[in-house]
């Protein structure tokens, strides 16, 4: 694609600098309890999250409802403002003179779960995809030409689909249009929030393959959010497991899925249906539902459902600590001398 206007999408810090660097991200939502207002309490949706996304990698975020994965996506996109914490994009702090929000959003785009609700019902597919470029100063002809290129790239023949409205195409096709729209400003980072969860299985595979192809062709970076571990494993280089607003475990996809160190990650893996009729799941790995994020349990937030929980777990919170190359876990069992009976002894004691 050759276009007269090209946007500020230069690589600034070189390949070693993370594309996205998040520190101390916090978002609490106030809620009123009871009919009379009562005491104000807060949902601790995201409660001190820090991670990095390297250039051209896919970071998968996985967790159950209420774990904060979608809030994290919205914070990354600046759809909602964080209460605390900062986001650096290729070394520049987002929302400052060096990188204002408009400039940031040209480079970071999002695809939502609900393909229907996220499209304007009164715009045709080509108008939808051309909208962003028009806003950013492209001529009508240039924007439409880019839209047609993109529709073609996501597997929708422009001669058939350019003039259609959202209600005239299937869910899988709509999600392709959403992806085309997200790519229209040639972003460097795509945030994909459950992009295939609403699709049928046979269509899900088509969209996942498309996302991999686009990444290979354009050197994109993805933050891929899903509740489905199989899908996250298929898509991601690294995986971040969240539980009640905090990171439970973070590391390379294969390491996390083959050798999980957090009991919650292990339970999530064991909860996946077995696919072997002769070897069905015999015991549920966890009891009960995830607790309400309004009143998260004290100490380690997972201790109420953890089969390894010790008294120290309700008193002390485990920081996210390294347990291997690029592999970190927030569990007292992984910290030497933490007071948990299953924790390794301190090096000085062992010597």
């Amino acid at each position, binding site marked *: 694609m050759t276009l007269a206007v090209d946007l500020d999408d230069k690589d600034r810090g070189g390949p070693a600098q993370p594309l996205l660097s998040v520190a101390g991200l916090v978002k609490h939502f106030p809620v009123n309890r009871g009919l009379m207002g009562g005491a104000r309490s807060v949902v601790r949706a995201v409660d001190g999250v820090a991670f990095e996304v390297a250039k051209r990698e896919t970071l998968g975020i996985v967790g159950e409802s209420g774990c904060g994965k979608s809030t994290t996506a919205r914070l990354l996109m600046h759809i909602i403002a964080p209460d605390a914490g900062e986001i650096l994009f290729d070394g520049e702090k987002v929302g400052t003179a060096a990188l204002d929000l408009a400039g940031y959003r040209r480079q970071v785009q999002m695809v939502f779960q609900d393909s229907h609700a996220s499209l304007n019902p009164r715009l045709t597919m080509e108008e939808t995809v051309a909208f962003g470029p028009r806003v950013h100063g492209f001529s009508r002809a240039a924007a439409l030409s880019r839209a047609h290129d993109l529709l073609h790239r996501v597997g929708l023949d422009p001669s058939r689909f350019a003039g259609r409205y959202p209600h005239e195409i299937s869910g*899988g096709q709509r999600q392709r249009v959403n992806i085309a729209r997200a790519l229209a400003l040639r972003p460097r980072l795509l945030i994909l929030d459950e992009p295939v969860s609403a699709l049928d299985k046979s269509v899900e595979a088509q969209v996942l393959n498309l996302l991999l192809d686009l990444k290979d062709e354009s050197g994109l970076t993805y933050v891929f959010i899903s509740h489905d571990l199989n899908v996250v*494993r298929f898509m991601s280089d690294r995986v971040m497991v969240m539980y009640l607003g905090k990171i439970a475990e973070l590391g390379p996809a294969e390491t996390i899925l083959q050798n999980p160190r957090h009991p919650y990650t292990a339970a999530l893996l064991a909860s996946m249906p077995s696919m072997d009729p002769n070897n069905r*799941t015999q015991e549920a790995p966890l009891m009960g539902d995830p607790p309400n994020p309004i009143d998260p349990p004290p100490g380690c937030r997972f201790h109420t459902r953890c089969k390894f929980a010790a008294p120290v777990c309700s008193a002390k919170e485990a920081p996210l600590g390294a347990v291997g190359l690029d592999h970190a876990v927030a569990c007292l069992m992984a910290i030497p001398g933490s007071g948990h009976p299953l924790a390794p002894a301190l090096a000085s004691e062992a010597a």
Partner: protein
Amino acid sequence: MSAAPLVDVKGLTVDFAGSAKPVRAVSGVDLTLAKGEVLALLGESGSGKTVTMRALMRLLPKSARIGGQVRVAGRDVLALAPDELAAMRGPVVSMVFQEPGIALDPVYRLGDQIAEAVMRHEGASRSQGRARALELFERVRIPSAARRLDNYPHEMSGGMRQRAMIALALSCHPKVLLADEPTTALDATVQIQILLLLRELQRELGLAVMFVTHDIGVAVEVADRIAVMYAGRIVETGSCARVVQAPQHPYTQGLLASRAGHVFAKGERLGTIPGSPPDLANPPPGCAFAPRCKVAEAICTKDLPREYQAEPGHVARCVRLAPAPATVAA
């Protein structure tokens, strides 16, 4: 299988007239369900799995026209008068819905909802009904059952609400339990708990269960047999193990190949089924899957394939399974 099956469906069709073009959501489904058997109806949205299941209880909107024959526990369901139908729902067939938050009445305490069903169907007193409710809450392992009976649905978590829904469905000792995607709205760690609970209750109570799902993994965890639906027809039926290990219909094969859990090498692509399911207001002639099928032949777009047996108890609607020379002789 000995006596007559508990559920016997022959040539079931369901048409929705309402909109501009009539839609045939189910076009000729035959299925049986024996006592103590678990059948999973597997299919994507619009395949007709939920409509098929709801036809067993006639829980369909007025615009639906049901044809064919539906027998449940000896009753001709399509011929029942309204009061006979109401008497059947609960003690003979009951249903667990996908969204307990919507299916349960938000303004009644859960214990009272269960007691009401027992009073209505068994002529029990209110206190007997409440006692049954307590027994059922303990059975589905709701912690602090006695206290939870006084909860309203919104006071419970999703997993607990689904347990309460199962308790309600079991309240009148049904013979057949229908479950419509009962775990789809739940988190993974809760889904497996509910699947194990349903499996345990089915075994202990000797229930016949029909389980609608879009997730093969879920079907494998609960089902004895799997029936795969596509565009309003059952395209493959067989034991759970054989359908998963030796799928016969190209659609089933495609579904299994497209699972993301299947691929382990980085950068590999998933097997896909091209295109999307057909518009049921304009179904393609012949085999409905032919336009997306990688091995379709000319005949596939002309004639509707009948069921062929791949092995005993395992059938699929695909002409590739037709015995080669016999087609002329027949």
